[in-house]
């Protein structure tokens, strides 16, 4: 007879890892103990696979249901769920796909998965009020270069060598017509951001704009972020770009380190 903890550990080993001798703790009446444990294994795998399908519908559509389920089962075994909140499950799926040999030919697949995980994060992220323009205007001109800015909690930057936005768009459920994307279209630099009305937008950015936001998101001060943007793209409308991302609620806060 096992105690509660030993039973739970034994159950997990049997159901998640396929360890063989736990069915002696299960009453066999009609159905065998092994069959009864198998029902719990199916339930767990189905539930976790469903959670992955909810976050990665485009990956699923691209590889097909059977392949997705196979990949999901491998993923679940290698990266078990670590939270009672299923929305946290699936974070490592893009990296898993990167090294998943059966998907190696789909070189763009991990980046499509990164886009879907970013979308999932943006969907559930906190809100934030717009930037306090009056407070920003009070910063003396000679101190502006030292400012640090924050991106909205529901904003993510993503860069890919593949046309992942086009791939995402042609693989939406409501999409009809041509679903071919020419990989030679090249890569994309994206801002994924949730707007005030809670809709999520994908904005392809030019090099300067992307580098400006990425530097600010990486906690660079304003002067060095601007330098990087100008180095990345010439000519670059720095004031226009900055104003746009403040007014559209992408840059939402700032602070001035004490000098």
């Amino acid at each position: 007879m096992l105690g509660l903890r030993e039973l739970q550990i034994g159950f997990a080993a049997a159901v998640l890892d396929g360890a063989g001798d736990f069915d002696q703790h299960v009453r066999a009446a009609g159905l065998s103990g092994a069959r009864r444990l198998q029902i719990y294994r199916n339930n767990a795998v189905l539930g976790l696979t469903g959670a992955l399908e909810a976050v990665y519908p485009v990956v699923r559509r691209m590889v097909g249901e059977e392949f997705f389920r196979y990949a999901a089962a491998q993923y679940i075994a290698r990266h078990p769920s670590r939270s009672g909140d299923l929305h946290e499950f699936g974070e490592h799926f893009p990296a898993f796909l990167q090294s998943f040999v059966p998907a190696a030919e789909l070189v763009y697949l991990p980046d499509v998965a990164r886009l879907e995980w970013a979308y999932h994060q943006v969907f559930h992220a906190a809100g934030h009020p717009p930037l306090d323009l009056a407070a920003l205007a009070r910063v003396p001109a000679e101190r502006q270069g030292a400012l640090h800015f924050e991106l909205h909690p529901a904003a993510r930057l993503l860069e890919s060598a593949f046309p992942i936005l086009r791939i995402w768009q042609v693989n939406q459920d409501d999409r009809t017509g041509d679903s071919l994307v020419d990989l030679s279209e090249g890569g994309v630099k994206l801002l994924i951001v949730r707007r005030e009305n809670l809709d999520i937008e994908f904005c392809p950015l030019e090099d300067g704009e992307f580098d400006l936001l990425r530097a600010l998101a990486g906690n660079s001060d304003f002067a060095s972020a601007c330098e990087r943007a100008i180095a990345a793209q010439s000519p670059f409308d720095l004031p226009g770009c900055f104003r746009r991302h403040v007014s559209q609620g992408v840059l939402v806060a700032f602070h001035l380190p004490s000098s």
Partner: protein
Amino acid sequence: MSTKLAPSRLGPSSIPAQAGIGLRAEHYDAVLETRPPVGWLEVHSENYFGAGGKPLDYLERIRPHYPLSLHGVGLSIGSTDPLDRQHLAKLKELIRRFEPALVSEHLSWGSVGGRYFNDLLPLPYTDEALYHLIARVAQVQDVLGRQILIENPSSYLQYIESAIPEWEFLVELAERTGCGVLLDVNNIYVSASNHGFDAGGYLRAVPRHLVREIHLAGFTVNRFDDGEILIDTHNRPVWPAVWALYRQAVQRFGPIPTLIEWDTDLPELAVLVDEVQRADAILEERHARAA
């Protein structure tokens, strides 16, 4: 006998002895636009654990129109791992924000060694497990500062270690901790069928004063060459045999808030409203007899 509580700033603060539905994302817009005639709504707490975005926004807009119950599926209250403090903190914040009339969890566990099944797993019904659950429910009620309800699960196996019938385990847990009982009549039917006990006897073993809420849902029959088993799938209407058991439950416990649960292969809202009306009719019969 209904006591009218003052409505909170958020909306109705007590749950009437009527039928309600589980609110799912697919029905957000239909609920807001058509305000279906259901007595109350229940949501899965974890679906609102995000920091922001549409789920919370919809719940904010729907809450003023219906009494609300929060039903947890991921706390893993029966696990021998330490309670997840962060999970509990998110639940507490959700309670503060939405002021639900009822908060419930399951008589089950869902994780060990930090690995989660995200499923409701069966407990061995032993003295050791009972003491563990008593301590855990007390701890959760302490942190939340309120009573919770504990729901009987559907189960597909029994451990040879189990020495206490589920109904005695559940009643003892409620009597010792002051938690209420969320009686899932479908789960009683499913487990009774799977393990060969008498569903009516289960109902008669639960004292009237403990039951605060009832759940109803549809199950699926899985057939194998060595027998069949009922699986609690929440993907179809309530079965006739479960309606019959529900009628017995209402006769015994009186009119109790009753939830129609439907989680996969969701139908149109109107189908859920039909189920609500069937449950309401049974509750009405009981009201009429009591009058």
